[in-house]
């Protein structure tokens, strides 16, 4: 299995690093700027996927399966988080008819 890294190294690791950092930053920006809870949530998922990409890249560069296993776990956890998150958003929508986080001011920030 040692050939895999050789082939993969045709694309420098930094490219992956920059790509995932960019994705991550987009996610962070989205979380900080957007108002809609669902979109914030999607931005968080984007962050997680940036991490996944990074981990997968590192893992294949080192031909070390640990990184990929980690990705699996991140995906599973993200799924659980999505489930809970969507449930919460639906719950709020039922009470509020909106998913705009700024309407949620019963508690002051």
């Amino acid at each position, binding site marked *: 299995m040692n050939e895999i890294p050789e082939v993969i190294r045709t694309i420098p690791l930094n490219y992956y690093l920059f790509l995932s950092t960019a994705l991550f930053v987009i996610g962070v920006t989205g979380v900080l700027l957007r108002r809609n809870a669902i979109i914030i949530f999607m931005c*968080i998922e984007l962050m997680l996927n940036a*991490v996944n990409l990074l981990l997968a890249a590192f893992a294949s560069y080192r031909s070390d399966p640990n990184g990929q296993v*980690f990705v699996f776990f991140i995906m599973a956890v993200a799924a659980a*988080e999505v489930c809970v998150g969507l449930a919460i*958003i639906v719950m709020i929508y039922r009470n509020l008819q909106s998913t705009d986080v700024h309407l*949620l001011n*019963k*508690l*002051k920030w």
Partner: protein
Amino acid sequence: MTSIILLSVFGIINLFLGFLKSNRILMPAVVVFLAIVFGVNFIDWNQGPQTHFNNMLVIDNFSVAFAAVMVLSMLLILPFSRSYVTDENPHLAEFYSLLLFSLVGAIMMVSYENMLMLFLGIEILSIAMYVLAGSHKKQLRSNEAALKYLLMGSFATGILLFGIALIYGASGTFNISDIASFSSTQPAGLLPMMEVGVLMILIGVCFKIGAAPFHFWTPDVYEGTPTIFTAYMSTVVKTAGIAAFYKLVWSVFPGLNEFWYPTLVAITVLTLVIGNVGAAVQNSFKRMLAYSSIAHAGYLLIALTSFNDRSENAILFYALAYTVATVAAFGVLKLVSDQRGEEGYEAFNGLGKTNPLLAFSMTVAMCSLASIPLTGGFFAKFFIFGAAIDAGAVWLVVVAILMSAVSIYYYFRVVIAMYMRDAEGERIAVDPFAAFMLIVLSIFTILMGVAPGLFNNLL
């Protein structure tokens, strides 16, 4: 290890117990479960470090002790959930099970040997808490708390994960001892990635434990969450977070000490100031407790910054004392707010007359939190300061002390309300379980205050 498996199994069993016709059996069942786990947990005591699951978890005295503290916290909190135990409550079994599951996560957080387990532990704990934060489905406050907790929590997770990924990229491993040996050798070319990774992990964990400047979600979430789960959050979650943090900085990145130490100190000071000053300006007792939990995170962080053979013990003792006092405070708050319908300081007016027991245990709890002698909180802070002074961080302790003085202001506001203001409300009905538990908590607090040797230097 056994405790993790047992807790998971019990959690599942408990879920299925929920299908029985009556909810009455649930609380006793959970108490029995927890008692068993608490006992079994000590099998691993003094057995030396044992690794499990392909080196993913390591069970040593550190993890056993913290696991015991956390299981105990939940045991202590349980009796106050009696008002939930009705047959009309269709989700009671789920609440209890989520608590049990989250305990699994908490134990994983204190015994991880691999970054994967840290991440999983945090998430198992957090996801359960997201649900519990929103467990009052019809209440907008609770909904909002759940959403904020969720968004901030997963945001923090994202940051933490990015940090872990970078560290993995730099060191090629998730195993903490490998990372430690890697970071102490420090190959020059990879350092920036490592540093950014460490920084992001720090930020992520600070988010999770609610350390300033990443604390802003904490008061809202704590206030909106149903009181019983707030108690859980501010005890178990905080303990687990701090213990994990401790392990992180001292087992994973000791080699990068010089790099993160200033950051951590800055965070500590900021946390102390914001927590205490924030608590002082609150008008809601519950919100004050939320800020106070930030403040206590700050005190615990002091122990983190001052690494020596004392800090482990100091953290353990502090966690125990803080837990006991906080549970009592939240317990009384729950009883009061359930029946008087408010969570402000005014709700406690005249409690000293109508309910001497509640007022007394609240006073003991407040004294403990304010670290007045005769209570566990005093020795807790004493050990923490001791560790810090031993490490030479006197000025940090001075900041902490200034802030402690501030803390007395807000902790004693409720004492004043209870004893020095006239009664407004009726006598509050207290069920025997809760009363018994309050007495136990008070005795425990005072016991820790007069005989701290019993709980000191366990590790």
